[in-house]
């Protein structure tokens, strides 16, 4: 009788766990920013899955611990010993193999999603650059491309980061400090930095890439939702790091083209830059710092 009751209790416990973790997994979507890209939906599916599995494990173990804490306490001063059981080989094998299976499961899911997002291409990329003796010394400073598997894209935009500003170069050599992207088109961003490490990060797009000076890193994404977003530098880049942001507009093809044409007709002029103005206008506070680079000169500031 006792045994049946225990089994029943365990079954109820597991059922409650399953229902709860499924529910929490669904909730996980709402903890994320809006989904701005095709990639974001996939990342959120993965996140929801991870949260559900995590909740199951967390509540399961905490439940067992709390059960013991609530039921097996003894009065102060009672130092009699519990059960002398030192282990159970079968159980220990089970709880080694089960996590292995969980890990396999989670890794496989993550691998699948990564392949679908396919930021840099999963094939091993070997880019050998052996400087020849007769090559000029600055040959190595030519951008290297990590992505050899070219994806068909509608648009390529050059992203240029420096301390502490963003600038974007569109086809036709049109430049701006705003990132405009046509909706529903796959875009390739070519990331470059002039000075230190920076990082390209728009939370609504979900994906992130460090920018490494003297290298061009390719990065493809497909915006799915019209709107205004904020691009952030995600790799610490020095004093004015928090100010290194830019506006991102995802808009209809027409609006994008209109904007591009309008920009093309404008004479390049220096853009406004919050790091530069904080440094020059505000009294310089505190310890010496790298002087912000001149604001980028662009068609559309």
């Amino acid at each position, binding site marked *: 009788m006792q045994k049946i009751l225990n089994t029943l209790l365990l079954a109820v416990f597991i059922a409650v766990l399953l229902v709860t973790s499924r529910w929490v997994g669904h909730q996980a979507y709402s903890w994320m920013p809006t989904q701005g890209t095709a990639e974001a939906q996939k990342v959120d599916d993965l996140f929801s899955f991870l949260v559900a599995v995590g909740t199951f494990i967390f509540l399961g173990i905490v439940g067992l611990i709390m059960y*013991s804490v609530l039921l097996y306490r003894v009065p102060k001063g009672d130092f009699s010993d519990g059960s002398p059981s030192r282990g159970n080989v079968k159980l220990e094998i089970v709880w080694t193999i089960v996590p292995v299976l969980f890990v396999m499961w989670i890794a496989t899911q993550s691998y699948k999603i990564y392949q679908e997002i396919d930021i840099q291409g999963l094939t091993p990329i070997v880019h050998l650059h052996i400087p020849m003796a007769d090559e000029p010394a600055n040959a190595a400073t030519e951008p290297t491309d990590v992505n050899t598997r070219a994806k068909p894209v509608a648009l390529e935009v050059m992203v240029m980061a420096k301390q502490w500003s963003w600038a974007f170069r569109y086809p036709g050599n049109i430049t701006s400090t705003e990132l405009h992207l046509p909706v529903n088109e796959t875009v390739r961003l070519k990331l470059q930095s002039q000075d230190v490490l920076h990082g390209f990060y728009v939370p609504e797009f979900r*994906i992130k890439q460090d920018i490494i000076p003297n*290298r061009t890193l390719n990065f493809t994404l497909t915006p799915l939702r019209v709107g205004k977003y904020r691009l952030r530098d995600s790799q610490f880049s020095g004093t004015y790091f*928090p100010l290194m942001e830019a506006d991102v507009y995802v808009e209809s093809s027409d609006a994008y083209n209109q904007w591009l044409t309008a920009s093309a007709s404008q004479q390049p002029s220096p853009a406004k830059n919050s790091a530069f103005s904080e440094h020059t206008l505000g009294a310089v506070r505190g310890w010496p710092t790298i002087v912000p680079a001149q604001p980028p000169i662009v068609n559309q500031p």
Partner: protein
Amino acid sequence: MTQDIQMGNAGSDPQPNRWRYFSFSTDHKVIGIQYMVTSFIFFLIAGLFSMLMRAELLTPELNLLSRPLYNGLFTLHGTMMIFLWIIPCLVGLANYLVPLMIGARDMAFPRLNAIAFWLIPPTGIFLLSSFLLPSGTAQAGWWSYPPVSIQNPSGHLFNGELFWILSVALLGISSIMGGVNFVTTIVRLRAPGMTYFRMPIFVWTVLSAQLLQLFCLPSLTGAAILLFFDLAFGTSFFDPFKEGSPVLYQHLFWFYSHPAVYVMVLPALGIFSEIIPAFSRNPLFGYISVALASFGIAIVSIFVWVHHMFASGTPGWMRMLFMFTTMLVAVPTGVKVFAWTATIWKGKLHMETPMLFALAGIIMFLFGGITGVMLGSVPFDLHVNNTYFVVGHFHYIVFNTITMAIYAAMYFWFPKITGRMYAEGWGKIHFVLTFIGANLTFFPMHPLGLQGMVRRVSSYNPQYQELNIVASLGGFLLGISTLPFIVNIVASWLQGRPAPNNPWHATGLEWTVSSPPPVENFEEIPIVTLPPYSYGHDQLAADTPTQK
């Protein structure tokens, strides 16, 4: 187990010479206390830095600190918490306990032990003195990634970054000395009968952690030296514009600094493995698998460093490989968590302060472990990499797990170390404040990171303010929570009730000697005949000479 009621001999040491704690003592117990007290002072200072940062983050705008100062504070906060608090504090605890636990009279190299300790206070002061330099402190974060770290805006040769590099190198030397000493001590000085599989888990974890130090630390020291050359002499090891590679620095740095997390967390797991059985009155469930899991964690942790670099210029195959190895850490770690859960199961639980800290530490470790596996998943990591989600995750490990474990250990071994009992009520107040403060501070960082708040920012977008206020209030509560601890420890050490030799009725050789232990530890080196954690073996224990 029959000497339970025997009172400690606090009286037999009527005039303890407190000055020995300020001297170049070679007694491992004195050195252990020196380590713990010194590192706790650095903990308070680095904690104060974090409270200043939390105060700045109460509002989205920059209004309390200057940007360089904010950057300096988070750089020194991280550096000090790791290299001047957690690592030395756990080394101190291990220094005190390992010889007692394995039945040795001292560490293998007592003089080296003292030198290793005495490198720490001057280095810490040296690092802090960079506040007085015209350049200010290092401001590139505790990773000190080039090129930012070698930009040196002040133009001075003696700049904060230089001080940072030298401090890290010196602390590394101290750690290597400690590593050599611990490994030798554990391998060579075990009492007769203290086979490897009779060592307490704490000793196992110290051994695996110190082997990791010996294996991985040279990589950091090498990176620091190359960075020093780049900074001071204009070499170009890491300068991307002169054929150098900043990504190479990241590999060298994380090759040590990821295992460093395990150097810190392993002894914490060892502490849990001592306290949980003692307060459950059950033997540690699956002792051998827990012991081997410690080594398993250490070995796997050497092959996971690239998960800090998923968003760097790493190729896809490397991301996938390291994703898998990272998740694999969950297996030996899971074994430990399951073992503790099973140890508690149907035990006879005592919920004194050490047990409260240990149980809360395990639960929060589980949480931090789960978010760790999530972070190992590359597509998810690409979203939250370098956001507050990561900050929240690792504070669940370094504070909510490791610092909780350190507190648990301080209460658990306080009677042994000082010969006096601490005040239980104050201990519980300390626990409640710390537990609430820790979760209030570090939990909101997860949603903040999911929403896209990047770490290391002195000002931020107003949408993140509410959760930042919660985290800041939690941070201030954590600051306050140290007060009952300090009062309790100081007052109890001076005037506490004398402690018996074994107030917890725990197993382990350290509990067979007086509280505090005599200078030579053991009058006669004990002969060990029993496996550890022999709870439930009263009769057996009473019959063996080692357990008296």
